[in-house]
C-alpha cells in the first residue's frame, strides 16, 4: 500500500461567510452615512435604515408581490429548464436536430427576450400569469439547451470506448455515463437561470397590468413618490433571487458532490 496522497480537499471549505458579511455591512454603513451627511433626497437614494423600516412595515404587501411575481419566475424557471433539457437531450440523440438547433439557439440567446414581454401580453393576455411565465421560460430555455448539449457531449472518448467494450446499449450509456457527466453543465445553466428568471419576471410585470405584482408595485410606488416602498420591493426581489440561487446551489452540492465548488 502506498503512502498515497489521499487529500480531503472537499472538506477544505473556506470560511467565506464572514468576509462577505463584513463587506456588506461596510457598504450599508457607508451608504447610510453618505445619505445623511450629504442630505440626499429620498427620490434619489433613500437611506438603508429607511428602506429597512418600510420593508418591515410592508411585509404583507411584499409577500403578496413575491407570491405573484415569484410564482411566475419559479414556474417559468422550472418549465423553461425542463424544456431546454428535453430539447438538448433530443438534439444529442438526433444529429439533424442538433445541427439545426445549435445555431438557432445561439441566435435566440442573443435576442433580448425580455423585450418580447409586450408581445406575450398581447398573445396570452396582460392579466394572465402565463404571459409572465412564457417570458421567463423563454429566457431560461436557451442557456439550458446549449449547456445540456455541451454537457451530454462532455464524456471523454476513452469513457465511451469503455462502455463500448462492455457492449452497453445506448440507454445504459446515457444513464450511466452521459447523464452524470452532463450534470455540472446542467447546474451551471440552472445557476445562471435562477438570476435571469427573477429579472425576466419583473420586466414582464412592468409591461403587464398585473396588480399586486412586484413590478407593478415598483412602478406605481415610484409614481406615488413612495420611494422607500419601491426600494423595499427591490430588496424583497433580491432576497427571493438569492433564495432561488441558494436552492440551486444546495441541489448541486447534493447531486454533484464530486465537483468542488
Amino acid at each position, binding site marked *: *500500500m*502506498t503512502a*498515497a*496522497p*489521499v*487529500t*480531503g*480537499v472537499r472538506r477544505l471549505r473556506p470560511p467565506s461567510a464572514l468576509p462577505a458579511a463584513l463587506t456588506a455591512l461596510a457598504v450599508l454603513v457607508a451608504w447610510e452615512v453618505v445619505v445623511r451627511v450629504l442630505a440626499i433626497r429620498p427620490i434619489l437614494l433613500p437611506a438603508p435604515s429607511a428602506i429597512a423600516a418600510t420593508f418591515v412595515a410592508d411585509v404583507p404587501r411584499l409577500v403578496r408581490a413575491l407570491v405573484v411575481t415569484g410564482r411566475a419566475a419559479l414556474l417559468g424557471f422550472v418549465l423553461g429548464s425542463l424544456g431546454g433539457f428535453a430539447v438538448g437531450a433530443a438534439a444529442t440523440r438526433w444529429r439533424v436536430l442538433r445541427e439545426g438547433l445549435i445555431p438557432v439557439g445561439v441566435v435566440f440567446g442573443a435576442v433580448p427576450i425580455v423585450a418580447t414581454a409586450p408581445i406575450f401580453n398581447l398573445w396570452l393576455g396582460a392579466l394572465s400569469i402565463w404571459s409572465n411565465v412564457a417570458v421567463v421560460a423563454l429566457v431560461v430555455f436557451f442557456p439550458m439547451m446549449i449547456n445540456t448539449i455541451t454537457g451530454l457531449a462532455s464524456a*471523454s472518448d*476513452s*469513457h465511451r*470506448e*469503455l462502455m*463500448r*467494450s*462492455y*457492449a*452497453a446499449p445506448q440507454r*445504459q450509456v446515457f444513464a*450511466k*455515463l452521459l447523464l*452524470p*457527466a452532463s*450534470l455540472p453543465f446542467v447546474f451551471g445553466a440552472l445557476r445562471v437561470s435562477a438570476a435571469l428568471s427573477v429579472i425576466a419576471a419583473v420586466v414582464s410585470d412592468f409591461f403587464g397590468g398585473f396588480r399586486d405584482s412586484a413590478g407593478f408595485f415598483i412602478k406605481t410606488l415610484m409614481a406615488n413618490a413612495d420611494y422607500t416602498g419601491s426600494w423595499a420591493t427591490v430588496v424583497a426581489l433580491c432576497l427571493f433571487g438569492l433564495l432561488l440561487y441558494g436552492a440551486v446551489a444546495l441541489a448541486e452540492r447534493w447531486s*454533484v*458532490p*464530486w*465537483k468542488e465548488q
Partner: protein
Amino acid sequence: MTSPEEAAVTVEAGPPVVAAAEPTVAVRHVTRTFGEVTALSDVSLDVAPGSFVSLIGPSGCGKSTLLRVIADLLEPSSGEVVVAGKTPHRARTDRDYGMVFQKATLFDWRTVRRNVELPLELMGWDRTRRRARADEMLALVELTDFAKHRPAQLSGGMQQRVAIARALAFSPKLLLMDEPFGALDEITRERLNLELLDIWTKTRTTVVFVTHSIPEAVFLSTDVVVMSPRPGRVLRRIPVDLPRPRDTGTRELDRYFELVTEVRETLRGAGLL
C-alpha cells in the same frame, strides 16, 4: 457467479476435445488501414489460453490498433480474428474480455467500489452480489480501505488498480491492457508489475498487454511480440523462459538481461533503435 479459481478450472476443464489446443485469441493475416496509412499489415498472432502476451514496439507500430481490433473497438480492413472461439463482436457482446486503458477511465461521480461494480451493474447483477464481488476484487488489488473514496482522491497507481479490479470483476476469459502503466512513475510501475503477476497467477486470465517498455514486457510475459511501424507488422515473437514465480530477484537474473538484450537487438536490427 464463479470465483476466479472456479473460472480457471472451467477454462481448463472446458469443452473436452479441441478446447485445450484452441487459442484464446487468433489473429489471421489482419490488415488495417486508416485512409492512406497502413496501421497493421498482414499480422498473424496466436494467444494461448492462460498465457501473458506483450505487444511491444515504438509509437505507430500498430500495437494499440491490434488490441482494438481484438476488442472489436476497430474492424480489420482484411483478415480474420477469433476471440474465445467467436467473432470479436460476439466476444464483446458476450463480455468475454475486460479492458484496461492507459488512463484509468474511472467515473468521477462514483466511489471506488461503485466503479468496480459498473460492469456488473450493466450485466444486471443484483446489488448484494455486486457489492460482494466488488469487495472481493478490491481485496485482490489491496484497496479495501479505499472502497468509499472517490477516484480523484487516489494516486495514479491506485486508480489504475481500481481499473484492473473493474476489468476483472466479471471474471472475463481475457484481459486486454493498453499501456496500463505508461503514465506512472518507474517505482510505482515496478510494484504494479509485481501485483499484476500476482493477480494473473490467482485468476489465470489470459492477458494481452501493450507496452513500450522492454523491461516490463520481459518481466511480465510468457511471450513478447516485437512489432515495427510503417506499416505495423510483427517482427518476431520471443518466448520468455524465466522461472516463475517471478519477483524482484527476477530482474537481476542473467537470463533476464539476455532476454531484454534480445528484444532490444530485434528492434535495433529493424533500424528502430
